[in-house]
């Protein structure tokens, strides 16, 4: 299942990016190589031969709308400057100004400097008072926006993933340390004995008194109380305990699936910190709703984990079952 979903994400992003880009190309959404007429004014006057002249760029909204066939409208004026070089004159918009689409996207492509929109000036006609001029500007051609965007996203998110994982090191270490003490002191065992009657039917694979049960209880408790920071390391530890019971190296056991399902749908007595931060006091009204929803969805999660596990396809891959049916090769012959 995960194989298909994962591949689906990648294939669909490629397909969608290509479709969007081809559509942009056929409609020439960015008007590549076509000049946009505009007016520039020179608050300090224009002097021929000066390399860099500060200007205000005025784009007529109606012209803009017609030119790009868009409803977006430009601001009344943009700061910028003209740069005269031997190759011709360039118009550069001030860094970081907010531009209407599609100019915003074009800016991302005219790259020498990141946050400056720039284009080549044609048909420059200076007014007699040399305080303003009309001109036409050709921007950098833009092609395959989405294709570039998905590649960039792939790189960015790969980095984010590593940052996330490394950011967990400290908290994971803290809790693994505490749990080790708890195990040695017998706290986990006490917890197991205490909660076994409730959890036993959900995790029939776990032998009596095994510490895995204790870790699961701690994980679910932390989850319930909205302690995301603590729930993750506890869940990881619970998974490790379950993996010790799992005869297979790379296939999830039924108990693992159950733990996962209970985690994705765990009862939330205290909502997640992030949500509280966003909603502020409003959250008080919602707690009751969240508790009702999560209680029912927990029941659904547990039932569906149990029932799906009975489907022939998933039954066939159940590592516990496989191990029962085929004794390990080094087992003594009966």
């Amino acid at each position: 299942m995960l194989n298909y979903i994962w591949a689906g994400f990648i294939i669909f992003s490629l397909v969608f990016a290509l479709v969007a880009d081809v559509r942009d190309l056929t409609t020439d959404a960015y008007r590549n190589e076509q000049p946009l007429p505009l007016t520039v004014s020179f608050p300090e006057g224009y002097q021929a031969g000066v390399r860099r002249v500060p200007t205000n760029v005025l784009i007529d909204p109606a012209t803009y709308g017609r030119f790009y066939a868009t409803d977006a409208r430009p601001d009344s004026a943009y700061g910028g400057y003209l740069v005269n070089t031997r190759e011709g004159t360039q118009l550069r918009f001030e860094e970081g100004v907010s531009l209407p689409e599609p100019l915003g996207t074009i800016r991302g492509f005219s790259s020498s400097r990141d946050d400056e929109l720039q284009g080549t000036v044609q048909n420059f006609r200076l007014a007699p008072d040399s305080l303003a001029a009309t001109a036409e500007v050709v921007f950098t051609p833009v092609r395959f926006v989405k294709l570039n965007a998905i590649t960039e996203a792939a790189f960015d998110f790969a980095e984010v993933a590593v940052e996330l994982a490394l950011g967990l090191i400290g908290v994971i270490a803290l809790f693994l340390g505490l749990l080790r003490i708890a195990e040695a002191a017998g706290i986990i065992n006490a917890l197991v004995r205490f909660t076994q009657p409730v959890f036993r039917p959900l995790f029939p694979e776990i032998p009596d008194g095994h510490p895995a049960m204790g870790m699961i209880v701690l994980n679910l408790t932390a989850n319930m109380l909205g302690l995301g920071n603590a729930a993750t390391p506890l869940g990881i530890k619970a998974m490790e305990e379950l993996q010790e019971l799992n005869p297979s190296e790379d296939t999830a056991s039924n108990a693992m699936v159950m733990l996962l399902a209970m985690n994705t749908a765990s009862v939330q007595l205290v909502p997640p910190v992030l949500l509280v931060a966003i909603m502020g006091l409003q959250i008080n009204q919602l707690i009751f709703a969240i508790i009702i929803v999560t209680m029912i969805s927990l029941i659904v999660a547990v039932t569906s984990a149990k029932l799906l596990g009975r489907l022939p396809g998933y039954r066939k891959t159940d590592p516990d079952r496989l191990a029962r049916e085929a004794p390990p090769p080094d087992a003594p012959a009966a």
Partner: protein
Amino acid sequence: METIRYVISIVSVFVLPLLIVGFPLYGLYKKVPVYEEFVEGAKEGFSVAVRIIPYLVAILFAIGMFRASGAMDFLVEGLRPVLSLLGIPPEVLPMAIIRPLTGSGSAGIVLDMINQYGEDSIFVKMAATMFGSTETTFYVIAVYFGAVNVKKTRHAVPAGLIADATAMILAVYVVRLLFG
């Protein structure tokens, strides 16, 4: 109701300090070499985090591409008629789809909806309830299974998604019932 909530909020404040202080104290009482045991356990922290990396990279980059390509918006549009049959307002649809994929993304959606519809809007309440009632399922799968190097997740994804879908639909109905 008010008192129950009060008690819960107090309890949740005390749980973590209790774990962090209580475990070593009780260990000491039980004559466990607490410092040594702690260090021994904490040693694994690094290797666990590193073990998760490939799984997280795999999941997150695929989701990142999916969002960047605009496919997500298309999915939202495509599901609109189906969900309106179930009585789910299209306004909360982005939340329902993005929630299992990214936590920060869905937080962004709540913020965006507050700007768009106002804090008291029923849509914001629905979206926030969805947010609070479900997990970032794909992240949890990557982290939990990644930590033990399990690659064949069997029915974990369908079970998680069924639970998510239930919670999303329920959130709409429950909020409508309580505030509608």
